């Protein structure tokens, strides 16, 4: 078994404009997903929007810059993730296909085994 991180990238404005009803509908989709995936689910969280993000960089001489912004400004931003257990990439892709992401898509990355 290996672990894969499924990163959910979606258009944040859709949620900002969608109201409570949308939140509840999407929340339900995620509950259904979690139920379907069962024991393969090793973790996951939703993130607050990128407007709350703070980026920190250190340059070569050790000076630290703190910026009120996400690391990269993109139309579709990282909004949540799941950590999933799967035998191989095919299995991980099958699970990831079921992750709700109606305003974008997901990226699957293998976790580095230490």
């Amino acid at each position: 078994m290996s672990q894969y991180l499924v990163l959910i990238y979606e258009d944040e404005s859709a949620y900002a404009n969608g109201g409570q009803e949308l939140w509840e509908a999407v929340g339900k989709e995620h509950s259904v997903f979690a139920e379907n995936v069962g024991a393969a689910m090793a973790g996951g969280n939703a993130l607050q929007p990128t407007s709350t993000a703070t980026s920190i960089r250190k340059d070569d001489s050790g000076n630290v810059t703190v910026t009120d912004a996400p690391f990269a400004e993109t139309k579709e931003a990282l909004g949540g993730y799941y950590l999933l257990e799967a035998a191989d990439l095919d299995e991980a892709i099958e699970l990831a296909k079921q992750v709700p992401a109606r305003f974008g898509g997901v990226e699957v990355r293998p976790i580095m085994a230490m």
Partner: protein
Amino acid sequence: MPNRAEVAAAVAQAHRREWAFVLAATVRLTRNLDLAEECVQDAYARALIDWERQGVPTNPGAWLTTVSHRRGLDLMRREMTLRRSLPLLVEDDESADTAELALDAMEAAHAIHDDRLRLICTCCHPALAQESQIALTLRLVCGITTAEVARAFLISESTMAARITRAKKKIAIARIPYRVPSARELPERLDAICSVIHLLFTTGHTAPTGESLVRTDLVDRSIQLARMMRVLAPDNPGVMGLLALILLTDSRRDARVGVDRRLVTLAKQDRSQWDRAAIDEGIALVRRALPHTDRYTLQAAIAAVHAEAPSWEETDWREITGLYELLLRIWPSPVVYLNHAVAVGLADGPAKGLTLLDALASEPALAAYGYFEASRAYFLVDLGRVDEAKSAYESALLLTENAVEREFLESRLEGLPL
């Protein structure tokens, strides 16, 4: 005992025919693509020496597999202490069991069959970029050296080597499984394999740049791969259609370039130079595949109409127009619209063809496609609109880098009435 030249020829033939089989069987043992390649290369090198002394074995593939396996076991034992950087390929339990068995009874037909299917499915996995799928297929399934693969795609050897290494790393690290897809997944995976083979063919058929119109090595490899897939997936109509399409299109190879190396269009080709055996095989395959109308089968059916026409003038353009209409339903791409427009023009007159073509003028996908302006020019000449034809040929010339196609367009341009 055979002499050196005979041995070299036998090894070269075994390389062409058996590489995929030997590599696939070795990967199952080593579960590491790099290690398996090393073993197979060693086995072929050994063959050059041993076959000269012992004679060419009756079953070269089995001989090479045994030698490659032995080398694999040897290296794996050594590597127990010297762990490789890449993790082992992921296999299903079944294949791990049969790996033992295959050592004893290599001729177990289904094991061989599954080995090669596993290998090509891994090379053409949808999680790999298509350019990587193509590179891996040529390198691992066809056994072409990285330098040759790079030359075929006109990129530097170091770029190609990096591409292949990156793809192999992804297979190992992201755990792209090395296994035969389930019956449910198989059709989709066969589609991916077919599009890699088709792209190899089209790249070889009209080399996008360079001096030679056809890069026969790529065309021959695509035919070889399509034939292999016919064996591995005998009932898949898409594979039948693909092989038919390649055979029928390639049957015109000798007639496409004149003695002066110039491109000869379908209209002017000497049809007695067409390869009748390839045409017969292609048409039989189309007939078998035809109730299914996937894109390869329909394109093959169009090629079959051309193949059966005694001359350009006697071509059944209405039949071709109808087939393009069916094709547009499942594959509404700008290039298919373009070909449909040309067929309509030939069936119903240049004015109708030109109207349909001009309706495609704003299509961004055709903006860089030389055939679009060349087709417009063809109908404009027929309609006596010479000035417009001239500028259309000039636009087409700006868009092709193939020397033979350029010469053709230039000669058409020069041949325009003043």
